[in-house]
C-alpha cells in the first residue's frame, strides 16, 4: 500500500515537528496523563464514585481517602477520576460533533455557493448573534438534561465557527490552479470537494476542535455548577464543584472543590497548549 506509507510519513513529519515544540509537548503530556488516569480509574481507586457512606461524611484527606469525602461520604478522588471520563467525553464529542456538522455544511456552501450558501450563512449568523451560553441554556431547557442531550446541544450550537472557517477556506481554495487542473481532467465535483480541497482545511479544523474541547469542558462545568448540565447523579467535574455552592464549604472544606477546579484548569491549559502547538505545526504555509 503505497499511499498508506506516504500518508504516515506526512503524519510522522508533523509529529517530529510537534515534538520539537516544548509547550505543545507539555500540553500533550498533561492531556495524555489525565486521559490515562480517567481510563484507568478502577485501578487507581478502590471506591465507586457513587457509593454513599454516611458514616464518613466530609472527611478531610487521609490515607484511605486521599482527597477526602464529600457530604454524602463519597470518595472525592473516585469522583474526580470517573468524572474526568464524562467531562472529557462531553468536551471532545461536543467539539467533534460541531466540527463535523460545520465542515460538511461549510464544504457544500463554500464549493457551490448559490442560495444554499446564502441561507446557511444567515443561519450561522443567527446562531452567532446569541451568546453561546444563552443558546445552550435555552436548548437545555427545551431538550432536557442528560449526557447525550448535552453533547447534542454543544454540537448544534458549536457548528457556526467551523462552518465559517471551512467555507472561507473553500472560497479561496476553489480558485486554486490545482482545483482547475482537477476539473480539466474531468474529476468529479464530489471528489474535488472532499478529496482535493477538504484535506487542505483540516489543519485549522483540528486546531479549532482542540481549542473548543477546552471551551466545552468549561461550559459543561459551568452548566453543571448551575445544575443545568449533566444530571447530578453522574459525576463530572462540574457536578463535583457544584457542592461548593455554599460559602462554608468554600472556606472549610477546600478538598471538595479544589481538586476538580485544578483538574479543569490543568486540562484546559494542556489542551490549549497542545492546540497552539498544533496550529504552528499544521500551518500549511510552512
Amino acid at each position, binding site marked *: 500500500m503505497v*499511499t498508506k506509507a506516504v500518508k504516515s510519513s506526512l503524519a510522522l513529519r508533523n509529529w517530529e515537528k510537534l515534538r520539537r515544540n516544548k509547550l505543545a509537548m507539555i500540553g500533550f503530556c498533561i492531556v495524555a496523563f489525565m486521559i490515562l488516569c480517567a481510563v484507568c480509574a478502577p485501578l487507581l481507586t478502590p471506591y465507586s464514585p457513587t457509593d454513599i457512606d454516611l458514616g464518613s461524611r466530609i472527611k478531610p484527606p487521609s490515607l484511605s481517602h486521599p482527597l477526602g469525602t464529600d457530604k454524602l461520604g463519597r470518595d472525592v478522588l473516585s469522583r474526580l477520576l470517573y468524572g474526568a471520563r464524562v467531562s472529557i467525553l462531553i468536551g471532545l464529542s461536543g467539539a467533534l460533533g460541531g466540527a463535523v456538522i460545520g465542515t460538511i455544511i461549510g464544504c457544500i456552501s463554500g464549493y457551490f455557493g448559490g442560495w444554499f450558501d446564502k441561507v446557511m450563512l444567515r443561519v450561522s449568523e443567527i446562531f452567532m448573534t446569541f451568546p453561546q451560553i444563552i443558546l445552550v441554556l435555552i436548548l437545555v431547557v427545551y431538550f432536557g438534561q442528560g449526557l447525550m442531550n448535552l453533547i447534542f446541544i454543544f454540537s448544534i450550537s458549536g457548528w457556526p465557527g467551523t462552518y465559517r472557517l471551512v467555507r472561507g477556506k473553500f472560497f479561496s481554495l476553489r480558485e*486554486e490552479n490545482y482545483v482547475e*487542473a482537477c476539473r480539466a481532467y*474531468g474529476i468529479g465535483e464530489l471528489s474535488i470537494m472532499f478529496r482535493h480541497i477538504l484535506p487542505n482545511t483540516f489543519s485549522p479544523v483540528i486546531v479549532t476542535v482542540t481549542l473548543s474541547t477546552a471551551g466545552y469542558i468549561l461550559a459543561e462545568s459551568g452548566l453543571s455548577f448551575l445544575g443545568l448540565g449533566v444530571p447530578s447523579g453522574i459525576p463530572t467535574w462540574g457536578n463535583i464543584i457544584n457542592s461548593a455552592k455554599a460559602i462554608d464549604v468554600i472556606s472549610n472544606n477546600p478538598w471538595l472543590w479544589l481538586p476538580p477546579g485544578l483538574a479543569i484548569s490543568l486540562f484546559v491549559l494542556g489542551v490549549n497548549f497542545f492546540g497552539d502547538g498544533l496550529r504552528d505545526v499544521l500551518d500549511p504555509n510552512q
Partner: protein
Amino acid sequence: MLELHGGLDDMTKASPAVQPNMNDVILDIRHLKKYYPVYKGVFKKVTGHVKAVDDVSLYVRRGETLGLVGESGCGKTTLGKCIVRLQSPTSGEMRFRYGEGGMRDILSLNAKEGFDVRKKIQIVFQDPYSSLNPVKTIYEAFDEPLRVHRMGSRAQRKEIIAQMLEVVNLRSDYMYRYPHEFSGGQRQRISIARALCIKPELIVCDEPVSALDVSIQAQVLNLMKDLQQQMNLSYVFIAHDLSVVEYMSDRIAVMYLGQVVELATSTSLYRTPRHPYTEALLSAVPTPELDAVRERIVLKGDVPSPINPPSGCRFHPRCSKCQEICRVEMPQLRKVSGTEDHYVACHLADTESVPQEARMEL
C-alpha cells in the same frame, strides 16, 4: 503526421486554394465569445458585460504551437480556459479532432463524450506554486486522473507516472514527495508531466514560464519543445513575453481587448508587423545589440474597459494612425495582400477583401 515544426514550411508550400490544409487542423475556433455579466445594486441587475473574449476565430494544427500574446486583461487566459472548457463560452463554436469522427463541436457534447475529450486537451498553469495540491504527493496527484480515465492497473499507472517524471528529467522516486519539496522549475516540470500523463494531443500553456527565473525558463521551454517533437503535441502558448513567444511559436495571434488583431507566422509577424498595436508591442522588446537604432513606440493612455469597448476599431483611441473609418467601422481580420498566412484586422493595412473566416470554410 510527422510534421512537427512544419507550420511555416507548410504554409509557404501550400497553394492558396487549399489553405489552410484542414486535415491538419486539430482545433478550430469560430466566433468564440465569453461575456461575464456585471451586476449592480441590491437586486443584482445585470448592467453590462465584460467582453473578455469577443468574436475570436482561430485554428491550431497538429504539432504546431500557436502563440497568444497581448497585455494583461486582453482575454488570453480566458480564451485558454475556454479551450480547456474550464469556462464555458457565451457563444461560438469550438471544433476538435478526436476519435474517428473527424472534427466535432466539443461545446455541445454529452457528459460521456465531454469527459473523453478532457483527456485530449490539457492545461499547464502560470503559477507553479498553486498548481500542485500541497497535501498530495506527486503520486496521488497523478494517479487519480489516470484512474478516472481508466488507464491501466495500479502497477501500470505507477509505471506511467515514473515514466512521465523521467520524461521531464526528474527522478521517478520523486513521486513519493510533496510539492513543497520542489523548486519552482521542478514544480513546473511536474505540472507539465501531469498534463502529459493522460496523453493529450493539445496543451494550453498559460504563461508557463513567466513565474520562473530566466535560466530556468530556457530549460522548461526547451523541454516543452522536445516533448512536442516526441509526442507530436500541439500547443496554445499564452504569454506576454514576446521573445519567449517568438522562440516557441509557429504562428502567433496578437490579442487586444478580447479580439485577435493580427495573426501570422512568427517570422512574418516579427519581420513585418502590420497592425499598429503589434508594432508598438514589438518596439518594446529589448534587443541584445548595443547600438541598434530602434524607434520605441509608446502608446498613449490605458487599455479601455472591456465592459464598454470603443466603437469601430477597438484600438483607435490609442492609435497614432487613426482615421475617420477607424472610429466607425470595426475592421475584420483579413489576409494581407502578397502574403501566404498573415492576417490583420486594420483598415489601413493593405489587405485582400475576403475576411479570414470565409477562407477557412471547408
